[in-house]
């Protein structure tokens, strides 16, 4: 022992929380070394391609695959007739991966090929001859509920024309006598009485359009069976454990025989939450060819056959008193379900929360009908119906404020929810600094002054008008109890060098989950980020997690990781307490060492302690597990209940310049104030908010998937306008730390929040600039110009009740 070692060392307290932590996977990604699904090739791999319908709605009279099968290099050609017992997929189990006797939309899968190269597979597709007999098409959702409408699913789907598959699905699989895919009806209070008591009542119909995820990495997967018949899928899914179970059901396999590995994912945003036909077809091809099959979309295919955000036609009727208190809201929506049911149809779960609970509404009545059409079908997409609902709610907040002569900020503050309130729908707002979001966003953007000035300047000379608009949002921030469990598991192990492996069920889709989870563990164990390795992408290794959705990962997987780290810490400190003969409570972990909690004096470094624990008679390793299930509850049959353990709040103020001669709207600035519980990784959370704001900007101004007569007219980036770098607004972002009692280190979920109210605030900014209210999206120059010149579209929703 030398003199240096005897020197007493102290470590001052430090924290990782709130710091700018670099994303752990960023160096690999910035070097082009990260392997996405597109970059992985297996030995002996074949390439799969899908033949899609060329008709919007038609009977399949015959399919001739003989020429394709005869092409050299083709290993398998399959149609529905080749698959025994094909089972329906999707939220309503109304969708057979390979279509049997009928196609119901242009994207429908008719046949598929596995070949030695992509070129051969494409060539083979062209050799498949399909005979169709066109059926009348149904592409207007308003027509779908009228008597005598074309029916999309009038009879049971047959797997192959034989009788041996009995219809088992609950909805359309058994056939339907109407086009109604789903209905949602919610109510609290008495809206009829409330309307009679209102001083002001307003009503408008809003039309929310098709947009799509546009993940830069196109969809794809690789399926492979091993010699025992076990299935391995390299998949981009956001919900690996749900998929494992569902694939087992669809393929009639034991779930134990299915393993899912997720390579790095090139963007998710909700698009990878359902099982799609291409995934099942890829497995069918691998089974038929007895070789690994890789199936990757083209960009055009991605636009045509990926799910969209849910398009909605919505009528909102709202009322308030002269003093500014809200009295009621009544909502009717018509969801265009498309030909099959995915998560889009279930967006009312989220929409009704915004109508019932963003502001204090004593009476609320909400009705959705989702109808089948021959259009593309909608899935889940960041915000999940909330962009649509918020667009309508916030338009009416401005409209009613103006009607009673109240400033729009004051009107919102009067009705904003407070901490400790339980909403009419049963949501328990344990941490809520909504009013601070409102005041801070307004102050930082100078909202009051600019709002008043812009109104004065509406009639001023010159074509350029300035506008400022405010909108807010409420979203789940502590998971969402939709599935039987909303939990996540963690396995944590420390090796002899105090290197930690964090094995988590939570998937990384680019949002930064592995970094924030590591940060929580390192904070607890007093280790640097470099001490962490994360394993998070293999169902054979990682414990169960419900998946990346509902802005839940930081909160749920964070609490799970934290739980495992706390158990490890207890174990480590009790071993240290024994060694140093002091109470464990006097010790702590900091800077990779065991220290005296009070003074920070170093007792030993952690690697040495780990080896002490390991290499002794009563040898032990530090390995812990933790499963976190949030203290939320399932909604009852009336959709009431505290579905999330915490709720996220936010206010955004959008500033625009509008050219009245061209209709061009330029978004100049977005001021955002979000109640995020607590900032964990400042770099990461800024990235989430900035990315969300710009996604919201695209929804508001430029993006539109144009679907005419069931045909997607702009399946490419040239005509589907994503926002590009020169168009982004200045962004001023404030984080309000409400320190949620249940959240990990006080944090709440934030993934979806920033995209939600941009379009709503932009609509209010356009009104502020011009005095014209536009109720349809996006605000393209043409739509704005027409509206300013009295040629705006007339929107009308016939209430289903009236037509029956």
């Amino acid at each position, binding site marked *: 022992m030398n003199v240096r070692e005897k020197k007493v060392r102290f470590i001052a307290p430090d924290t990782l929380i709130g710091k*700018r932590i*670099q*994303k752990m*996977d*960023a*160096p*690999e*990604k*910035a*070097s*082009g*070394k*990260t*392997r*996405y699904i*597109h*970059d992985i090739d297996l030995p002996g791999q074949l390439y799969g391609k899908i033949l899609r319908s060329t008709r919007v709605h038609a009977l399949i009279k015959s399919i001739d695959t003989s020429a394709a099968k005869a092409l050299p290099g083709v290993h398998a050609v399959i149609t529905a007739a080749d698959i025994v017992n094909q089972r329906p997929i999707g939220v309503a189990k109304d969708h057979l991966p390979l279509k049997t006797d009928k196609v119901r939309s242009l994207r429908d899968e008719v046949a598929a090929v596995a070949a030695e190269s992509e070129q051969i597979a494409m060539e083979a597709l062209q050799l498949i001859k399909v005979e169709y007999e066109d059926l009348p098409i149904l592409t207007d959702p308003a027509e779908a509920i009228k008597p005598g409408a074309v029916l999309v699913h009038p009879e049971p789907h047959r797997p192959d024309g034989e009788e041996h598959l009995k219809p088992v699905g609950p909805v359309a699989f058994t056939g339907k006598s109407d086009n109604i895919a789903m209905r949602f009806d919610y109510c609290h209070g008495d809206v009829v009485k409330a309307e009679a008591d209102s001083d002001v009542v307003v009503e408008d119909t809003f039309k929310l359009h098709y947009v799509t*995820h*546009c*993940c*830069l*990495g*196109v969809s794809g997967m690789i399926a492979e069976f091993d010699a025992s018949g076990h299935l391995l899928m390299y998949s981009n899914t956001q919900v690996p454990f749900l998929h494992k179970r569902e694939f087992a059901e669809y393929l009639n396999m034991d779930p134990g025989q299915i393993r899912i590995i997720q390579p*790095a*994912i*090139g*963007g*998710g*945003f909700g698009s990878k939450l359902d099982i799609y036909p291409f995934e099942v077809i890829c497995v069918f091809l691998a089974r038929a060819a007895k070789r690994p099959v890789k199936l990757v979309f*083209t*960009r055009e295919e991605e636009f045509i056959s990926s799910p969209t955000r849910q398009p909605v036609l919505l009528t909102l009727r709202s009322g308030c008193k002269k003093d500014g208190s809200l009295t009621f809201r009544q909502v009717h929506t018509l969801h265009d379900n498309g030909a099959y049911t995915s998560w889009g149809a279930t967006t009312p779960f989220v929409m009704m929360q915004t109508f019932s609970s963003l502001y204090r509404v004593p009476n609320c009545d909400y009705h959705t009908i989702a109808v089948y059409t021959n259009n593309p079908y909608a899935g889940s997409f960041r915000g999940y119906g909330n962009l649509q609902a918020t667009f309508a709610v916030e338009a009416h907040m401005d409209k009613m404020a103006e009607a009673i002569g109240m400033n729009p900020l004051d009107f919102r503050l009067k009705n904003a929810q407070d901490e400790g309130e339980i909403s009419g729908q049963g949501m328990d707002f344990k941490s809520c600094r909504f009013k601070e979001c409102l005041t801070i966003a307004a102050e930082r953007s100078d909202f009051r002054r600019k709002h008043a000035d812009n109104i004065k300047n509406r009639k001023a000379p010159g074509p350029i008008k300035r506008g400022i608009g405010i909108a807010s949002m409420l979203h789940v921030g502590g998971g969402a109890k939709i599935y039987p469990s909303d939990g996540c598991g963690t396995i944590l192990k420390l090796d002899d060098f105090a290197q930690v492996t964090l094995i988590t069920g939570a998937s990384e*889709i*680019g*949002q*930064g989950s592995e970094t924030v989870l590591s940060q929580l563990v390192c904070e607890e164990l007093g280790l640097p980020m470099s001490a962490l390795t994360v394993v998070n992408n293999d169902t054979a290794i990682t414990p169960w997690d419900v998946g990346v959705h509902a802005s839940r990962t930081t909160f749920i997987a964070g609490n799970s990781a934290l739980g495992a780290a706390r158990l490890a810490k207890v174990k480590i400190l009790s071993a240290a307490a024994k060694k140093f003969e002091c109470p464990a409570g006097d010790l702590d972990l900091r800077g990779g060492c065991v220290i005296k909690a009070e003074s920070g004096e170093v007792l030993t470094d952690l690697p040495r302690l780990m080896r002490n624990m390991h290499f002794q008679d009563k040898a032990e390793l530090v390995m812990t597990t933790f499963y976190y299930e949030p203290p939320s509850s399932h909604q009852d049959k009336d959709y009431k209940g505290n579905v999330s353990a915490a709720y996220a709040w936010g206010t955004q103020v959008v500033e625009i310049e509008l050219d009245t001669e061209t209709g061009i709207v330029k978004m100049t600035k977005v001021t955002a104030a979000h109640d995020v519980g607590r900032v964990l990784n400042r*770099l*990461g959370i*800024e*990235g989430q908010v*900035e*990315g*969300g*704001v*710009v*996604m919201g900007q695209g929804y508001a101004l430029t993006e539109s998937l144009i679907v005419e007569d069931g045909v997607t007219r702009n399946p*490419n*980036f*040239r005509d589907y306008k*994503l*926002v*590009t*770098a*020169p168009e*982004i607004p200045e*962004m001023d972002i404030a984080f309000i730390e409400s320190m949620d009692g249940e959240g990990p280190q006080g944090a709440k979920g934030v993934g979806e929040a920033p995209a939600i109210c941009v379009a709503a605030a932009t609509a209010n900014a356009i009104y502020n600039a011009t005095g014209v209210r536009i109720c349809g999206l996006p605000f393209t120059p043409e739509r704005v110009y027409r509206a300013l010149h009295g040629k705006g579209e007339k929107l009308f929703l016939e209430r289903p009740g009236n037509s029956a």
Partner: protein
Amino acid sequence: MSLKHDIEFTLNGVKRRATVPVDMSALNMLREVIGLTGTKYGCGEGECGACTILVDGLSLNACLMFAVDCQGRELVTIEGLAADAKADALRAAFVEHGAVQCGYCTPGMVMQASHLLATHPHADAETIKRGIEGNLCRCTGYKKIVDAIAAAGSADPQGAAP
């Protein structure tokens, strides 16, 4: 069977040969014939910039260039940049400034940024935004990418091309 051509070119500083079908894109040659997967397919029609590479010092979309047209040219891909110490500052800036989320657009962005800084060493934010206009990103909202490129630019007083 499509007609094939033998071509010779420089890739990331190393002379090499390849045999490519006449209708193959430079992107597919890089990914499938040569096996360098850092250059990404995003759209195949020059709209997204995920496949940005440098050809004779100019940045372009590899999906729009025929592989046979690489004959006699000098190509640099993200793998070439990754081996280039001078590009360290740029990559480090992307990491440090949070310019990477899903990362799929990132190699193309880094390539375009490297070209931009080679031609405009002290580019301001507006120039940078124009410079990466042809590169789409769905995750970040671009701000942190612009910040990263600006930092890498001003961090190099000589403005030497990476």
